[in-house]
């Protein structure tokens, strides 16, 4: 038994359970745990199992192109890397953006938050709480009553409606071809919902699938497509032309009306369906308050959604910035991404080497030299891993630390920081939810708290989206239709050398890009992304990361069926393509192997 510096008792003597692939996430991930005789998790090992090398690919390229490359880090949180990238380039080159560009970027970023949170909850996470097979036993009339109790303003609530969905579900299950539901854990006692709640939530799974394709049309209008809309250093690419010649090809009244109607749809769904579902489902699981991990002791947020363009001071950001350590909510530290001491990445347990052990590097000076090797106690072979050796290197994810602390990032981290800072909207949302559910503040620090914070944030982002839409319209009304600043578009106007940092709050948490520009080209580019923080392996000192911490001490109903592991890991909304893409700055190509 070892006690980690961040206070977790690790015991790897019990039975080892391996989950690979972890599904319903973005990218590739593996998880191993040891359970004791009672089936309680006493050791957790989280591994990023993919690596793409995007940063070396960026070297030598035009900084104005970087948004498109980095956007392809992730197609789920599509656009957030692009926004972070254009901010990093603008920061390096001293480019300011116009008011309208700030409003449009905020609308797009908020739109992503809402889309991502809804898709995450219904399509990636719900099946950890909701049993669609059990929904077959529901009474449609009782389901209708439940719907009208928890979400009385949602129009789709009649018994006939639920009966139709149930029939469709019934035929699907009876066909014997269960598709995505195949081999699920449908008789596992970890599922606690009554059939009516299962039917209501499964119905909303389908409704949300229809709705999500509507939400993203905001990206399509401003960025031309989704996934992967287009962005621009210095502003946004879409011009505004309300009533001049050619306005049908630009942002005009018709386009604004479409954006506005989608914003309203988001607000309605959040209020009438998403939040009520979380409250209803959460009510049945309110005694299952495992999975807190680091959330009560060490959380980090960079903040985002600047009220005014080019002003990233903490008090001007609608999503809060700050760091909390040692569980002290009384003190919220400010965060400076430029400070070489604050953010550092370690690789002692990652499949990279710095040449010397124990070293941490700030991203501007980031070095990543891959070194894939299994530890002496690993089982299997290097191309057929049975069990990993966490005392050695065991993940393609690095271990970022804030002043040496392993941190949790994401919606719950933002909400803990916001709550601790007395952020009015966040505080009233959190207090309202806890009151409704009759839970203490401590209940926040759990898997359920993470899931609830995401829903609250989606609701808050809906209101913010409306705020920036109104601001956009007001600015245009005042006679300003500018969307781009091209003063420094031409590389000949740039300094010989420059460096910058861009920060955002991606749906999954704090996201930073660090860029160095030399002679008009990218000299170095580093990203430290949310899942690098959350999915981090152990560091030199032995601190475990947020995923690992969150799994500790959770009892499993049936250790061979990883329902509880999935539930807690999914509550972070892991994004593995994001987390595991770093590459050596020297750009050396590794040996080629023959296509077999």
């Amino acid at each position: 038994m070892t006690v980690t510096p961040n206070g977790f008792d690790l015991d790897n003597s019990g039975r080892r359970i391996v989950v690979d692939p972890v599904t319903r996430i973005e990218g590739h991930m593996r998880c191993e745990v040891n359970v004791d005789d009672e089936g309680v998790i006493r050791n957790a090992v989280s591994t990023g199992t993919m690596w793409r090398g995007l940063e070396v690919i960026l070297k030598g390229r035009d900084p104005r192109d970087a948004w498109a490359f980095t956007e392809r880090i992730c197609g789920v949180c599509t656009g957030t890397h692009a926004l972070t990238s254009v901010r990093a380039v603008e920061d390096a080159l001293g480019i300011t953006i116009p008011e309208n560009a700030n409003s449009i970027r905020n609308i797009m970023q908020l739109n992503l938050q809402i889309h991502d949170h809804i898709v995450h909850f219904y399509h990636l996470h719900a099946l950890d709480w909701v049993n669609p097979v059990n929904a077959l036993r529901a009474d449609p009339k009782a389901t209708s009553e439940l719907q009208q109790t928890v979400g009385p303003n949602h129009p789709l609530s009649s018994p006939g409606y639920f009966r139709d969905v149930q029939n469709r579900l019934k035929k699907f299950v009876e066909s014997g071809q269960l598709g995505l539901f195949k081999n699920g854990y449908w008789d596992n006692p970890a599922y606690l919902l009554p059939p009516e709640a299962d039917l209501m939530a499964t119905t909303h799974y389908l409704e949300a699938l229809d709705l999500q394709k509507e939400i993203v049309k905001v990206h399509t209008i401003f960025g031309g497509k989704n996934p992967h809309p287009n962005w621009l250093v210095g502003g946004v690419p879409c011009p505004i032309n309300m009533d001049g010649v050619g306005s049908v090809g630009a942002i005009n009244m018709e386009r604004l009306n479409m954006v506005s109607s989608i914003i309203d749809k988001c607000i309605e769904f959040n209020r009438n369906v998403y939040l009520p579902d979380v409250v209803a489902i959460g009510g049945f699981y309110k005694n299952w308050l495992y999975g807190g991990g680091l959330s009560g002791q060490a959380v980090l947020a960079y903040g985002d959604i600047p009220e005014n363009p080019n002003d990233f001071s903490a008090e001007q950001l609608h999503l809060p910035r700050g760091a909390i350590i040692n569980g002290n909510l009384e003190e919220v530290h400010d965060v400076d991404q430029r400070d070489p001491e604050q953010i550092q990445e370690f690789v002692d347990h990652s499949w990279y080497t710095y040449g010397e052990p124990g070293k941490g590097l700030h991203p501007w000076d980031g070095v990543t030299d891959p070194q894939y090797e299994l530890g002496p106690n690993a089982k299997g072979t290097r191309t057929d891993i049975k069990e990993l050796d966490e005392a050695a290197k065991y993940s393609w994810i690095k271990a970022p630390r804030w002043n040496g602390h392993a941190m949790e990032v994401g919606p719950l981290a933002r909400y803990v920081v916001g709550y601790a800072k007395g952020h009015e909207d966040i505080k009233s949302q959190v207090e309202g939810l806890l009151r409704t559910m009759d839970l203490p503040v401590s209940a926040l620090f759990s898997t359920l708290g993470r899931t609830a914070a995401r829903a609250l944030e989606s609701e808050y982002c809906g209101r913010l989206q409306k705020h920036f839409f109104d601001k956009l319209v007001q600015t245009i009304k005042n006679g300003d239709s500018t969307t781009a600043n091209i003063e420094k578009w031409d590389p000949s106007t740039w300094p010989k050398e420059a460096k910058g940092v861009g920060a955002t709050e991606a749906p999954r948490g704090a996201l930073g890009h660090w860029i160095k520009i030399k002679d008009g080209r990218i000299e170095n580019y580093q990203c430290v992304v949310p899942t690098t923080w959350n999915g981090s392996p152990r560091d030199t000192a032995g601190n475990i990361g947020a995923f690992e911490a969150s799994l500790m001490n959770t009892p499993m109903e049936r250790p061979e069926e990883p329902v509880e592991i999935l539930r807690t890991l999914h509550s972070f909304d892991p994004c593995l393509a994001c987390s595991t893409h770093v590459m050596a700055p020297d750009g050396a190509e590794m040996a080629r192997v023959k296509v077999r």
Partner: protein
Amino acid sequence: MSQIETFYDVMRRQGITRRSFMKYCSLTAAALGLGPAYVPKIAHAMETKPRTPVIWVHGLECTCCSESFIRSAHPLAKDVVLSMISLDYDDTLMAAAGHQAEAALEDTIEKYKGNYILAVEGNPPLNEDGMYCIVGGKPFVDQLRHAAKDAKAIISWGACASYGCVQAAAPNPTQATPVHKVITDKPIIKVPGCPPIAEVMTGVITYMLTFDRLPQLDRQGRPQMFYSQRIHDKCYRRPHFDAGQFVEAWDDENARKGYCLYKMGCKGPTTYNACSTVRWNEGVSFPIQSGHGCIGCSEDGFWDAGSFYDRVTDLTQFGVEANADRIGMATAGVVGAGVAAHAAASILVSAQRKAQSKKSQSEEA
């Protein structure tokens, strides 16, 4: 195979009326660009064919293809998944994980040998013995080969599976390799784009299910119905190109008027895709309509073709009659003549010179 129901059975059993079913068939026909005469044919196919199992695997990628797929408006993603195919393995969406997920894969391969479609999103990295992408403790390339062995056909979703995409951009550190270079003994349909358009994705699947054959493919293996013409050929801003009316700077008067984005680096003239016709997200817009040039994301190697803001220099010819195969075979040597002959010749030639000097700079860098 008798235990497998037909589409029609399933749709009817799921409460869909005959009338809705026929409506669905005519929408499908329209989506595929087929006339009303095809509606009964589609209906017949759906009434008699079993639901085809689909195994959807993920290599090095960003999941934008899956995200695009669920954006499909016609048919809706939920109808595809519940009523048209049986998505028996897809690690992004499936309920089961770990051993139970792997068992679902094995079970499907075993039960439907030679009768399932393998959809591949992303690609296998071959460096480091394939361990830059690990699934179930083993290299992804092993899973890919294993699932490909008994597949009826393979769909390479998106730029990653078709060409390698961003992780294969120079210097391709992981040796990310497109599917057709690893699997050489199966029919492969490339559906490029980063990501492909949602309705193109579901259109390709629906076509295969409906007609029980692969769509007509071009020389590169792309469905001709969606990839045989350049974005430029059908771009609504094309008249401005022909008239020599160009956006000269971001957000200038010409940008607000919706002039051609050629000078801002638009790759529409060299990109084969359906963006200017099908458009994106239920036809709401496409990149050029929203003011940014096309970045050419459905073309092989588009990441290494210079900056997205460099002007296109390898215009072979401007007529809409040129098809993908002819363009593909044209050599760099004939570039000049076709351009010079065009109405906008002078503007283009100077543009070309500038862009070429830019391009050589970028090659040095």
